[in-house]
């Protein structure tokens, strides 16, 4: 066991996989950084996740123009022809400019070939509000992405899961979007040596409890756990489930928790309508109706873009207090 930040866990996973398989390439904007500029020290990505890769793997680490459509499509084509590309799309907000390559090309090619074409493509991108980045650098569009047939969407909350899900994505056969929360890069946590892959579709019980089930992803797992500690003082034991993958969702784990608690709160950072929270509530309402003792609840940001001002952003994001309050009213119902 070692302690690593999410940033370093991801970086370390990239280093070890790239050393083991020269079919893995990494590409994106500024992921080398400083290309074309002499004597420049490499940036290694604006969040530093690809640091040091250029020095080791040179031609397999590729800076691109600001042409997300072209380079995401290029990565998709490369995945269809023998490589295992890892693309960095700097912020998930930018997926809008290359959504066709994501939703129609990368996500559909395996199906359209009836399984004859492999597509080992990993798209790393960042998400999340809380740092004053404003409406176009703060979104968390995992619910939107999960609507796309053919995509796996994952959103880790810990260093071990970040590295493990990244490995599963890179070693897998299909396209995966890995959503890294900007606010969690510096988060430290214990990781098993060798950073083992984490399978898709398997959640994690982040905290055990018997009274209420909270389903949350990414940074919301930490807020939910914080809320659970507050609630414990009042004798309410909340179970926090981190599905880790948005799609495929671990319905089994969620329903098993429901069997224990009978009460559900979903906390999400993506959009309010038709997002992750609604999907989980639907899973539970359909598959766990008899286990529900009270109406399920959700806590999401309001249905607006992410605001810039500090107070607005804080109000917009679900916080530990909001979660605790929602659980209290749920537990009392």
């Amino acid at each position, binding site marked *: 066991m070692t302690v690593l930040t999410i940033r370093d866990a991801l970086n370390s996973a990239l280093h070890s996989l790239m050393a083991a398989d020269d*079919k893995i*390439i990494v590409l994106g904007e500024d992921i080398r950084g400083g290309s074309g500029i002499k004597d420049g020290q490499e940036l290694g990505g604006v969040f530093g996740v690809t640091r040091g890769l250029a020095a080791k793997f040179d*031609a*397999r680490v*590729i800076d*691109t*123009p600001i*042409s997300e*459509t*072209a*380079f*995401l*499509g*290029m*990565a*998709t*084509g*490369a*995945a*269809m*022809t*023998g*490589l295992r*590309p890892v693309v960095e799309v700097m912020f998930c907000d930018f997926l809008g400019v290359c959504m*066709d*390559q994501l939703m*129609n*090309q990368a996500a559909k*090619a395996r*199906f*359209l*070939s*009836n*399984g*004859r*074409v492999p597509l080992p493509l990993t798209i790393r991108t960042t998400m999340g509000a809380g740092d004053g980045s404003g409406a176009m650098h703060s979104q968390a569009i995992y619910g939107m992405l999960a609507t796309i047939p053919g995509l796996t969407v994952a959103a880790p909350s810990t260093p071990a899961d970040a590295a493990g899900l990244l490995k599963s994505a890179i070693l897998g056969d299909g396209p995966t979007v890995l959503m890294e929360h900007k606010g969690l890069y510096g988060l430290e946590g214990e990781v098993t040596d060798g950073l083992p892959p984490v399978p898709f579709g398997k959640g994690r019980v982040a905290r055990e409890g018997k009274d209420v089930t909270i389903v949350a992803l990414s940074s919301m797992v930490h807020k939910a756990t914080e809320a659970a500690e507050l609630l414990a003082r009042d004798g309410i034991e909340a179970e926090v489930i981190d599905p880790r993958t948005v*799609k*495929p*969702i671990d*319905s089994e784990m969620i329903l098993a928790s429901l069997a224990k608690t009978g009460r559900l709160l979903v906390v999400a950072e993506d959009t309010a309508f038709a997002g992750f929270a609604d*999907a989980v509530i639907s*899973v539970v309402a359909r598959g766990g109706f008899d286990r529900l003792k009270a109406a399920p609840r959700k806590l999401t940001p309001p249905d607006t873009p992410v605001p810039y001002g500090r107070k607005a952003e804080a109000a917009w994001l679900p916080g530990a207090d909001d979660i605790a309050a929602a659980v209290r009213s749920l537990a009392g119902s």
Partner: protein
Amino acid sequence: MLTEGMTSLVEKGHFIRAFEGALARAFDAGEVPGLVHLSNGAEIFELAVMNTLRPPKDQVTGSHRSHGIALALGVDPFAMACEILGREDGLSEGLGGTQHLIAPDSGLLGSNGIVGGQVPLAAGAALSAKVQGTGGIGVTFFGDGAMNQGAVLETINLAVALKLPMLFVCENNGLGQSTAASYAGGGASIVGRARAAGIAAAHVDGGDLDESLAVASKLGGWVRETGSPAFIEASVPRLAGHYHGDAEVYRGEKKKVVDPLDRAGDLLLDRGVPEATLREIKTRVAEQAEEIVERAKAQPDVSDRALSRWTEGGAA
């Protein structure tokens, strides 16, 4: 090109025309699930380009109008017909269809339903070839209309910036659906736009077989030798509607164009190939095409079974 090779190429051209004719009749008979976009007029040029390629090391992507490209690459016509008719033994058992022909074994990485969507994918094939040192190249076909789509414009620049072994092939048939290429492209020269992006580029009359062979081999060779991208703009006629069944009222009075297949036939006659041989070729390939499409029509539709392999485990 030797007369023998050229005769075989022209034969392929007639086969493609006949194959699509048979498909069109199948469509009229209600046997085709969707609309088909025919290559009429572009066959000779496409064959000239394929003549320089070495699939499957080279991989090609195409647009919605890719039957001709697929056949020119040597994709099995029966598997293609079955796919276009949505039948058993289709390339994807009918899951993809006419706009999603995929046959990488023959060098066809895929055709596409999104105008320009196929272009970045071919950059990926080029990158693969470069990183793995296979000596292969990526090739992409697209239309004049696609030249105004961000995906295409970005990829031209990307290929230059990353020095990708990639051949861009823009088939300018003067129309994007009902819209004139000259209007949509603001009157600017396509090959000029490409060249300004820093790519080796040439224009060719795609109805001229000799010239097409020369330009394709020159620019294809450039890509292979230098590892840098190149761009061909070919003028080709669109001899029929945007899709089969398109009434083309918007087109007004059609200008008379000579069919590139006839022009290629004339080249053969000039070289002393007897007219009877040409007639015989046409009859033969028409029969072949007809037979293949008939066989495809007789195949069962098993696409639901193919689908069910993707839905087992079911939707969440």
